[in-house]
């Protein structure tokens, strides 16, 4: 409509680019699928390897893998709890009482991007020898380290919501109407930050389920380390589980997208 002045590309250019890149990016995924369907008689495709996963006879062979899945899910839940419990009250307190500390908190939360997990793990090894002495060697303690690695993502998700909501005015309004601070927090502030908190939780789950570096080098079992282990003896199963995990993460992030795409301005 606007005659040749818009920034956007022509539909032809758009779909050529998206088509070619999309096709290139589909090759590995399709190959994974093809790889797992391979091995029928005379080169025919078969779904045997997929059905074998559910076969109770193989349960023992996959025990490690299922334990990895279980551990990763547990870690995801504990990490979400830790991150939200530490981050949300801090960010609210800073927004309301210490606006000058915002830059500091932001800096601290972004730092983990600069410290690669492989570097962090060098220093985490001695820290975890202490943690193990205090809290035992159960896998959930890893969540403390994971919380740090997801800090940048969680911070950004919550902050983008926070900067769209004037928490100072909201809390002043609620206080002036006679609400005690507990009500301000649970009835006014948190409902307005629901979107950011949910997005932070989801991105945390995705990152934790994909984490390999720290678990591997601290010798814990999670989904990713189990996958690597299985792949040594049974690459097909490893690929099947990878596909499932990718599909799961994709769905999860699609849901985040829908949550954050709904315009926050229109919320009642």
């Amino acid at each position, binding site marked *: 409509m606007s005659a040749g002045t818009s920034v956007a590309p022509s539909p032809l250019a*758009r779909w050529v680019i998206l088509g070619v890149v999309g096709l290139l990016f589909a090759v590995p995924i399709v190959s994974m699928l093809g790889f797992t369907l391979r091995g029928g008689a005379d080169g025919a495709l078969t779904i045997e390897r997929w059905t074998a996963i559910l076969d109770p006879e193989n349960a023992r062979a996959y025990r490690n893998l299922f334990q990895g899945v279980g551990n990763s899910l547990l870690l995801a839940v504990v990490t979400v709890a830790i991150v939200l*419990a530490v981050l949300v009250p801090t960010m609210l307190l800073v927004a309301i009482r210490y606006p000058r500390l915002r830059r500091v908190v932001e800096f601290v939360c972004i730092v983990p991007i600069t410290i690669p997990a492989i570097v962090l793990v060098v220093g985490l090894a001695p820290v975890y020898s202490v943690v193990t002495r205090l809290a035992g060697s159960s896998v959930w303690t890893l969540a403390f*380290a994971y919380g740090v690695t997801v800090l940048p993502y969680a911070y950004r998700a919550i902050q983008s919501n926070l900067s769209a909501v004037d928490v100072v005015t909201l809390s002043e309004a609620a206080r002036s109407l006679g609400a005690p601070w507990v009500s301000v927090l649970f009835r006014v502030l948190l409902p307005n930050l629901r979107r950011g908190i949910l997005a932070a939780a989801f991105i945390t789950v995705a990152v934790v389920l994909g984490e390999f570096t720290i678990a*591997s*080098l601290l010798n814990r079992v999670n989904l990713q380390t189990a996958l690597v282990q299985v792949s040594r003896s049974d690459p097909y199963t490893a690929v099947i589980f990878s596909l499932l995990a990718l599909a799961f993460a994709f769905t999860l992030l699609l849901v985040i997208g829908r949550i954050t795409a709904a315009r926050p301005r229109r919320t009642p």
Partner: protein
Amino acid sequence: MTATASAAAVHVAGDVGTARSRRRLPAWLGLTPFALYVLLFLAIPTVLAIATGFVDGEGAFTLENLAALGDPVILGTFLDSFWVSAVTAVAGAVLGALVCYALLGLRPDGAVRSVVDSAASVLAQFGGVMLAFAFIATIGLQGVVTVLLADVFGINLFADGVWLYQVPGLLLPYLYFQVPLMVITFMPSLEGLKPQWAEATATLGGNRFVFWTRIAMPILAPSFLGSVLLLFANAFSSYATAAALISQGSQIVPLQIRGALISETVLGRENLAGALALGMVLVMVVLMTAYSLLQSRTERWQR
């Protein structure tokens, strides 16, 4: 636990203003859980990681490990890491920017954008190990594409040796997460191009080509450069994909740290991991500082 503690602190914080004072805890106490957590699991590990580089096998202070950073073998590994990071950063940035351009003009909450955004996030932030498997299944020795090329076209992908499990083999899998990361980081900048700029260009006598070369590209340059740096840092610090693909050896720095940690003695030194970690952190700090400088310029322009 921590949540209720800080909630209570927030609660008390508010009452400071009112005349009645009950249990008056200072409001800053609400910040302690965060501070403590970050101290224990971010600050201390980082300091420890770097500090171990200055300690020898007996726990005494030494600069020996640091000197190892000048060793030709280690320097070679750093160079290989730089090389992989640079190639995938530049290629990933160009391809990713092209995808961003193609996405311009589509509704941000439309179906195409939703799918692309989610797929990009999965590949950029979640992939790791699974991307390695994807490429083993595609162009590994028994990979679908390898077999297809051999059977149908008679092309042997690995005529010159099995490069997938070597440094060059990292390029394709790394691109597989670099391009999506570019899409995520560069899209906001591209969307920040104001339609008024294109319209002003047109009313002043410039065509589309003039707009892109004289207006859009100069405006986007700092942000593009920043994204290249971010991609470089991302590849440089990436471990999982390489570890899953290359099970032994020290082809790039993160793998060398693995070697040092699981006490394959590298160059016959202990605590080399710390020195390597220091080297990595130095590189990352330089990259991220430059990135944030470029980023602040972009923000100033796009307000």
